[in-house]
């Protein structure tokens, strides 16, 4: 589904993503792990065109998307849920959600997609008229994920969905991500600092350090690798 080959990007002279190669097969959950500053978010930002690629190639679903703008990439079915408050605070919950499906031509399906998001996150349905600024951290995270689903993506890039959430909520979000994959065959690339909970739902894992891939393996193998855990994952 997603193939990244020798991808390089940088903030000025500082290299953030350094020749990263990875593959996320259709219907899989791939965890991207690593410490703060390892280049995880930058990797996602480079994939979706928010940060220009200096070298390398990104292919999504058979299309070369390396030089495409973010607004065109989402139209191909690759949705990016950015880190932190991707919810637009000044808009209501429902406006935020509708925004995620506006680019789609199938107008009839938008209402149906909205209903499905409310089924998946009933809390959002209860608060549909509230300003997104009044939501709690967990609700905002649900809103960002729900909004991405409004476009019925083939693949979801999730940036730290559990950041700043209470452990119970974080587990809940992780379970939802897993069940989305199981129920709809969604492909997921999941960036997490919380390696333990990410590996618990992932099929495969990739560990980044200073922008480079230092390990890439089956999720269970990674979780069992004592040395790797001690060196990069901190659990």
């Amino acid at each position, binding site marked *: 589904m997603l193939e990244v080959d020798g991808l390089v990007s940088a903030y000025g002279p500082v290299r953030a993503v350094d020749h990263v190669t990875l593959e996320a097969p259709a219907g899989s959950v791939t965890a991207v792990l690593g410490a703060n500053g390892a280049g995880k978010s930058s990797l996602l930002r480079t994939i979706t065109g928010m940060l220009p690629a200096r070298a390398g190639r990104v292919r999504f679903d058979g299309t070369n998307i390396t030089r495409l703008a973010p*607004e065109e990439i*989402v139209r191909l079915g690759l949705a990016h849920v950015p880190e932190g408050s991707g919810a*637009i605070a000044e808009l209501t919950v429902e406006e935020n959600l509708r925004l995620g499906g506006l680019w789609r031509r199938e107008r009839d399906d938008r209402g149906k997609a909205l209903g499905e998001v409310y089924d998946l996150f009933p809390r959002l349905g209860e608060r549909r008229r509230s300003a997104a600024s009044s939501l709690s951290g967990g609700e905002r995270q649900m809103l960002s994920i729900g909004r991405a689903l409004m476009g019925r993506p083939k693949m979801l890039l999730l940036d730290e969905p559990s950041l700043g959430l209470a452990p119970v909520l974080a587990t809940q979000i992780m379970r939802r991500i897993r069940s989305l994959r199981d129920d709809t065959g969604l492909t997921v690339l999941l960036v997490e600092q919380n390696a333990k909970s990410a590996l618990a739902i992932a099929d495969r894992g990739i560990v980044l350090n200073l922008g480079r891939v230092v390990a890439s393996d089956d999720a269970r193998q990674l979780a069992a690798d004592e040395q790797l855990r001690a060196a990069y994952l901190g659990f």
Partner: protein
Amino acid sequence: MSRFLDLTLNGVSAGMIYAAVALSLGMIWRATRIVNFAQGGMFMVTTFIASSVIASSGSYWLGFVVALVCGFVIGAIVERVLIRPVEGGPPLNAVIVTLGLLILLQALAGMIWGGTPRSFPPAFSIRGYVVGWHHLGFSPQDLFTVVAVLAVAALLWALFQHTEAGLRLRASAFAPMVARLQGVRVGRMLTLGWALAALVGSLAGLLVAPSVFLGPNNFDPILVFGFTAAVLGGLDSPPGAVVGGLILGLCLSYVAGYAGSALVTLASLVVLIAVLMVRPSGLFTRARVRRV
């Protein structure tokens, strides 16, 4: 008492014009964080175009419509050609570009239409309504001004709140990067925002021209008053722009009537400074934290 009533009515119709200017400044501010000083020049040019069309066709309404359409087009062109290259840079660059454009437009207008102010026809009679024996300081033209600005404000509100384009416009203004990730073509939204803002500005020009005359520099005070109204109501708030325009219109009308018209510009500056000292974000904007 009747003098007070006249001054109040005058203030309302003048305030509506300031409100229109404030609305157009606020729309651009919300979308791009740029104060568009060229607005004064843009609506001066569209009013000159209206003047030429009216003179050659004899139809006021043809000139009216042509001016609004030209405003829309000029707004789009200015954003696309002049503002786009400096967007994302330091805000001061864009402000300097709009100032430069203002001066350029004033010079061009002087070359094309001459520097001598000319009269501009009102849409309706400027003779006050007669109530009993008294001529009110409020004419059909004033009524038209109030209705036109309120109607445009209502249309804009409906556009922004209840249409898909409006949702895209708001998302692009509040969080451009997030909007792009949702497939919103933010560049196009900025162009549309500037075009709409310039359309509202050109309406203000058409409404104010009969009373201040039409010349390359005659609208300068209107831009200053519009800016004051926008700051008064809060640059971020469209209802604030309307209320800010009204309050300023009333204040200036009372000052002109009771203290002398020479003090009007001074009064506007006093209002501006007072608001900036007491409530810098404006009367109608809730203070909020922007994460950077």
